[in-house]
Structure formats: C-alpha cells, structure tokens
C-alpha cells in the first residue's frame, strides 16, 4: 500500500490505480501518517524544514467538529453537451414527423385511387334529388324508416285494462 502511496504523491499512478490508492489512504490512519511524513521529507529536501513534525491535530479536530459538506454532483460538460444535442435532435425529429404528417393528412382528403390516378375524380359530395321527388314524400319515407325511437314509442301502456271484447 505504501509504495502505491509513494507513487501517488509523485503523480506516477494511472487514474484507476490512483483512485484505489486515494480510497485506501482515506480509510487508514497509518497511511495518512505515511502521506504526511513523505511530504515532510520532500519539504525538508527542498530546504523547507517544518517547525514541528506534529500532525495538524488542531485542524483535524476542528474539521471533525464541522458539519459534513455535501456539494451537488457536478454534471460534466460533455454530458451537458450530449443532453443538449439529444434535446435538439428530439425537437427536430418531432418537427419533421409533424410536417410529414400534415402533408399526408392534406393528401388523404382524396381517395387512394384518385391520388394514384389523376384521371379518376372523386364523386360529388352533395346529393341531388331526382326530378319530381317532393320533399314531403322524402320526409315521410325517412320517418317510416327512422332507426331511433320516436316519442310515440314511449307512451305508457295500460296493462290492467282488458280488451273490450274480453270484458264483455
């Protein structure tokens, strides 16, 4: 473990190895003391001898007394770009599909045969009555063939009244 720690402080570990070393060091008091001493050795060699070898207990104790900070997880710029690209692509797709759909709906007003063969024209939408047909006759015809119940059909039926022929 300590050899990884030594390589870590020299920036000589690959990213995944460094992650493991950092995690291991954070969980071990012994490793943290080694981390401390290795940095002191480097400082002394560069001419910066510390006034004391003591661990920074004051800071560590004050740190323990602090409420734990929790920063919101940062979204990497690459992820943000991907999200923006996906959103733009979605909007563009919806727009294209909508436009194609509207074009199709406009064309569907004509029958398929008419669309495929311009020579075939749709039949007229309005119905013209044959000559000599009276509107009243038509109305009577429709009344006779009405499918829906008419108000007359809801007349109350008197079941107690016997037929006149039977009472006699």
């Amino acid at each position, binding site marked *: 473990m300590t050899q990884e720690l030594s390589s870590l402080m020299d920036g000589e570990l690959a990213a995944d190895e460094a992650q493991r070393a950092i995690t291991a060091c954070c969980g071990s008091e012994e490793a943290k003391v080694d981390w401390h001493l290795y940095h002191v050795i480097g400082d002394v060699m560069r001419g910066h001898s510390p006034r004391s070898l003591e661990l920074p207990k004051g800071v560590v104790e004050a*740190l323990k007394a602090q409420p734990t900070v929790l920063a919101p997880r940062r979204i990497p710029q690459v992820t943000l770009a991907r999200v923006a690209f996906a959103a733009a692509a979605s909007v563009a797709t919806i727009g294209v599909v909508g436009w194609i759909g509207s074009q199709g709906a406009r064309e569907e007003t004509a029958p398929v045969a008419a669309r495929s063969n311009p020579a075939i024209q749709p039949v007229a939408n309005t119905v013209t009555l044959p000559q000599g047909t009276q509107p009243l006759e038509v109305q009577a015809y429709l009344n006779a063939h009405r499918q829906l119940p008419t108000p007359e059909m809801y007349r109350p039926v008197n079941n107690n009244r016997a037929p006149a022929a039977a009472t006699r």
Partner: protein
Amino acid sequence: MRAKGMKSLTFIIPQEAKKPFVAPATQGGLAGLAPFQKPPLQGRMSDREIDQQLVEKAQRGDKQAFEMLVRKYQRKLERLLSRVIRDPAEIEDVAQEAFIKAYRALPNFRGDSAFYTWLYRIGINTAKNYLIALGRRAPTSTEFDSEEAEGFEDAAGLRDINTPESELATKQIAQTVNDAIAALPEELRTAITLRELDGLSYEEIAQIMNCPIGTVRSRIFRAREAVAEKLRPQLGTSKDKRW
C-alpha cells in the same frame, strides 16, 4: 529569487538547517530544474488531478479526503502566511481558520483553478482580515498576487518566525532527514534526489539510472520509507508502536 515586499526581512534560521540536501549525482545540469513543473505523462494522474480527486471525495462528504489535503498543504500554507504574520501561534490559528473556511466553501469550488491556488487566496484573505481585526496594517493586494501561489515553493525570502525552541526542532528535523538520506545506498539516494529536488518523472529517472521504471518506483519508495522510519520516533508513531 526573493519574494516581493520581503527585502527588509532578516533570517535567523541557521542556514545548515534550511539548506536542501543535494546529492552529488544532481550537481550537474539537472539541479536547476524546478520540481512539479513538467506536464504529466499520458495516463498518469497529475498532482493537480490528485488534488481534484481528493476535493471531489470531500465534496461527497468524505472528511478523510480533506484531511489528506490538509496534511499535504499545511506547512506550505503556514510558510505563505509567515510572510504576513510574525507570531507562529497566530500563523497556526490563521492557517487552521483558512482550512476550515476552505472546507465550508468546498461546495463552491468548481476546479477552475488548482486547489492550492484557491486555498492560497482563502489563506491570504483570512490573514488580511485577521490583521485588520487586530488594527494592524494588512498587506495590499499587489503584494500578493494569486499567480504567486503556484511558484511559491521556490520563494526563498521567507520570514524567520522561529522561537529558539522551534528553531531547534526545525534544525533537528532537517538534520534527521539529511543524515538519513546521506546514509542511504547510492541508488536510493540518487533516485529520491532526482525526484524530489529535480522533479523528474520516473521515466526520466529510469533513463538516467539505466533501469526499469518499476525499479525506480521501488527505490524511491524504499528511500522514503527509510527516512520516514528515522522521523517516526520524533512523531511518536514508530511503525512497531503503531497498530
């Protein structure tokens, strides 16, 4: 290179305690290179990326990760603050306050700048506010540019703030480290010196020492472990005593 605004300061720390160890192997052209100035190799996690990983873990509620950042930067921040504040006890207090402020502000840290640059600004602002609260003159903003943060390690004009007791401790720590490095086998001493003083990558060290990268990795680790073992009694945490 002397830091801006520090020309009138005096130095009391014995020079032998401040003098960095220089191995014979690096006294050629390599010694002039500044450490941590090289771009990271492909696939390797750079110093800044490691800090960013620790920050992100802390932002997810892992206080241990922030503690690792404290252990890494506490001495550097205190050296920085010593340019503004004289009293060592005050420096410790202000550094502690700066770390706590940084921890509270972690949700706002987006990684646009390096963690240490951000911590540097918080430290300087905390020190200025501290001095203003005491009715003392705070340094102007032009005396401390944020760009200084990255190159601060090389600033030699540090104010001497040591008391006689801490001066002795400083000297003792330096002596222990230098003696331990001098006692290392040649290949271990060369490897750790090329790394710590010259800032060379393992690949570059492997080329210079004509050995595989894995060997360089092992030599640097063994060198650090040998020196750390000498320091542990001063820390009261010998490997035998611990766990």
